[in-house]
């Protein structure tokens, strides 16, 4: 079984091979060939991930070492993969959801000029993401970390001829660099504290340091910075809404299902550190909860079909980060899993709508589309209900697990766990509200634009089949994590051997029921409020609410972009302008002035050049005499 698990090391290589084939020979591939090659590469990766999954289930974690990655004196890092319960689960999500999105892309990107470039980059992303989750050391993880960043940059700016898309890609890359900087510093500190960068060794050694030691807190906060960059948490969240400039399947794969969960994975993977640094862990939860709340409020005020989902993603990733910060690593990963299904489905549904309307993304021009696009409408409704937390759908279970974890986490108790619980519960209600708004404005009600409505048509099967599969997943995947007091919680038990231990208070069964019913009430309240405002209020109430200060803050996304513009971009531009003018007005002018001096000097020297041989000879004689006199004076002849 061990050998079979090791076979899964080929998964990133296969995706890389797909990227190379499409990247180098894509020009010669016709029709759907690039998409089929890329999908096959990911499908093979999915099969290998399944093998690894069953292998780990049968025989536990497997480690593969391929040799040395970095050697410098005493400092040595092996090149190897670590297959355990956590990494194989992530591999399944990446290749499984990735495969569906690859197939969907064949339909969505049909006829695009850059289709082979698209699939090459998508495959490259899968390869990098697999390396990220399979790596057994921080530097190798960083390779994948940077790789997905590059692919994200490339794919956001995929339609680079439009300057806005290209600068959105650049923004994502630059903001991510801030987080990467945190990752690097965290690695330095980790090495200082533990003398190794092997993830398993660090996790094993972390409890031997003092509980809450300053260096552990420092490492934790720096990993939080890294996670905030990749997972779009405060204050580095501003790139994700702009990242919607990329093709919609990219938004689904990279900016909803996989890459943005890398921060969650990072914190779960380094659980040994966070479990022993309660201050850092509590900071993680506070950042995540505030992000979730802020992003949920902003999502209400957006009008772009994809941007609503982008803010929703920021908010949902906040839920996951909150869970891993609270020490409920399994709940965070559980929400990664469920979110991968329903958010990918929402994005692909949005993509299907955009595809049908020929590029229209403004929800104010939609409405009633569910009648023309049955599959897209129905699957999107399932995803909406799942994310809103309607009982018996996947999002309900994972969200409930997170809320319960916040309430009962012992380390978090000293840092305002109950306030955080209330805030996140509120966020869950707002989630139901804005998701109802999203669904209602797009698919239900009366069409607000006749022309757009007439144009709408259902997408081809290559797009609707992945939608249907994801919809089934969005319904059933939650049952792997049923509340532990009701039924065996499969995912918690599955992840337990590899997760750091954090103490939780035990809730009585009645309290557990109260919590379950509480989340139902909150979800119902959010959906009901949405129905009241958008479906019954016929727009008048929505308009009145739209004039409140909170609503304008929501539309302006709380002004982070403006703040960063005046804090960083404008001073940066000012500095660049200053340097440019220094170059132009001082260096260039100085040089030009100097070129003016040279001819003047030349004209002076010309005066010496009489052209009379005698004059030159005379100068020579004078020179010899001067030398002779000088030699006599300093006593050469003495």
């Amino acid at each position, binding site marked *: 079984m061990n050998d079979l698990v090791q076979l899964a090391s080929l998964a990133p290589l296969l995706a890389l091979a797909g990227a190379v084939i499409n990247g180098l020979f894509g020009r010669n591939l016709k029709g759907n060939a690039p998409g089929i090659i890329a999908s096959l590469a990911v499908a093979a990766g999915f099969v290998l991930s399944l093998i690894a999954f069953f292998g780990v289930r049968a025989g536990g974690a497997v480690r593969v070492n391929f040799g040395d990655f970095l050697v410098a004196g005493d400092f040595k890092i092996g090149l190897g993969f670590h297959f355990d319960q956590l990494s194989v689960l992530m591999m399944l999500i990446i290749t499984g959801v990735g495969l569906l999105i690859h197939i969907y892309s064949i339909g969505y990107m049909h006829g695009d000029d850059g289709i082979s470039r698209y699939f090459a980059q998508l495959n490259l992303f899968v390869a990098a993401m697999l390396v990220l989750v399979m790596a057994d050391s921080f530097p190798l993880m960083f390779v994948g970390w940077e790789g997905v960043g590059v692919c994200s940059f490339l794919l956001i700016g995929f339609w680079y001829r439009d300057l806005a898309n290209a600068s959105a890609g650049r923004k994502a890359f630059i903001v991510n660099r801030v987080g990467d900087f945190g990752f690097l510093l965290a690695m330095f500190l980790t090495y200082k504290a533990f003398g190794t960068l092997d993830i398993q060794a660090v996790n094993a050694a972390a409890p031997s340091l003092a509980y809450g030691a300053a260096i552990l807190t420092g490492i934790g906060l720096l990993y939080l910075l890294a996670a905030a960059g990749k997972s779009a948490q405060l204050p580095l969240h501003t790139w994700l809404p702009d990242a919607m400039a990329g093709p919609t399947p990219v938004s689904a794969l990279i900016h909803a299902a996989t890459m943005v969960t890398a921060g969650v994975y990072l914190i779960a993977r380094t659980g040994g550190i966070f479990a022993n640094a309660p201050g850092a862990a509590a900071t993680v939860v506070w950042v995540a909860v505030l992000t979730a709340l802020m992003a949920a409020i902003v999502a209400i005020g957006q009008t772009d079909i994809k941007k609503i989902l982008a803010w929703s993603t920021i908010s949902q990733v906040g839920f996951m980060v909150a869970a891993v910060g609270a020490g409920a690593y399994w709940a965070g990963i559980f929400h990664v899993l469920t979110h991968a299904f329903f958010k990918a489905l929402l994005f692909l549904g949005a993509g299907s709508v955009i595809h049908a309307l020929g590029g229209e993304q403004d929800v104010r021009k939609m409405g009633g589309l569910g009648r023309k696009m049955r599959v897209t409408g129905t699957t999107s409704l399932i995803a909406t209900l799942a994310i809103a937390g309607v009982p018996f759908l996947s999002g309900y279970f994972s969200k409930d697990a997170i809320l319960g974890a916040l309430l009962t986490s012992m380390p978090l108790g000293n840092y305002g766990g109950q306030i955080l619980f209330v805030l996140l519960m509120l966020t869950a209600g707002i989630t139901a509200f804005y998701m109802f708004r999203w669904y209602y404005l797009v698919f239900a009600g009366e069409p607000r634009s006749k022309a757009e409505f007439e144009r709408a048509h259902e997408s081809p099967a290559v797009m609707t089949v992945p939608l249907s599969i994801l919809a089934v997943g969005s319904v059933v995947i939650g049952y792997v994590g049923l509340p532990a007091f009701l039924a065996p919680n499969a995912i918690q038990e599955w992840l337990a051997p590899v997760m750091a231990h954090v103490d939780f208070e035990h809730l009585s069964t009645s309290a557990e029921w109260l919590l379950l019913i509480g989340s139902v009430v909150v979800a119902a309240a959010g959906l009901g409020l949405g129905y009241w405002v958008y479906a019954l209020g016929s727009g008048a109430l929505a308009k009145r609410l739209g004039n409140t200060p909170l609503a304008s803050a929501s539309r302006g996304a709380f002004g982070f972009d403006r703040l960063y513009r005046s804090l960083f971009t404008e001073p940066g531009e000012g500095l660049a302008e200053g340097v440019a003018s220094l170059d132009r007005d001082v260096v260039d002018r100085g040089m030009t002035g100097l070129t003016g001096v040279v001819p003047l000097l030349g004209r002076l020297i010309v005066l010496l050049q009489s052209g009379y*041989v005698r004059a030159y000879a005379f100068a020579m004689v004078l020179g010899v005499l001067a030398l002779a006199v000088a030699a006599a004076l300093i006593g050469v002849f003495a």
Partner: protein
Amino acid sequence: MVQTEYYVALSAVLFALGGIGVLTRRSAIMLFLSIELMLNAANLAIVAYARQWSAAGAQHALDGQAAVFIVLAIAAAEVAVGLGILVAIFRNRVSTDVDELSEVRA
């Protein structure tokens, strides 16, 4: 035996005469003559010193004499080339006034 100082003094006088000739004369022929005078002034100084060394029984007493032959040979070569150029210039200009040869002046 005549003292070396006298030879050197004569050599210096001849060299100075040659130098003044080079500086004051315009005719290329006279310039050549003056340069020859300077070369031979130098030769005179060299053989004078060589004589002094050999009188003192030094090991390489004849080196100076040999050097003079080299100078003579070079002077002869120089005159051959220089006079050739001079003839060519004279054919073009019907004059050997070096002050007129200043076309390359800026």
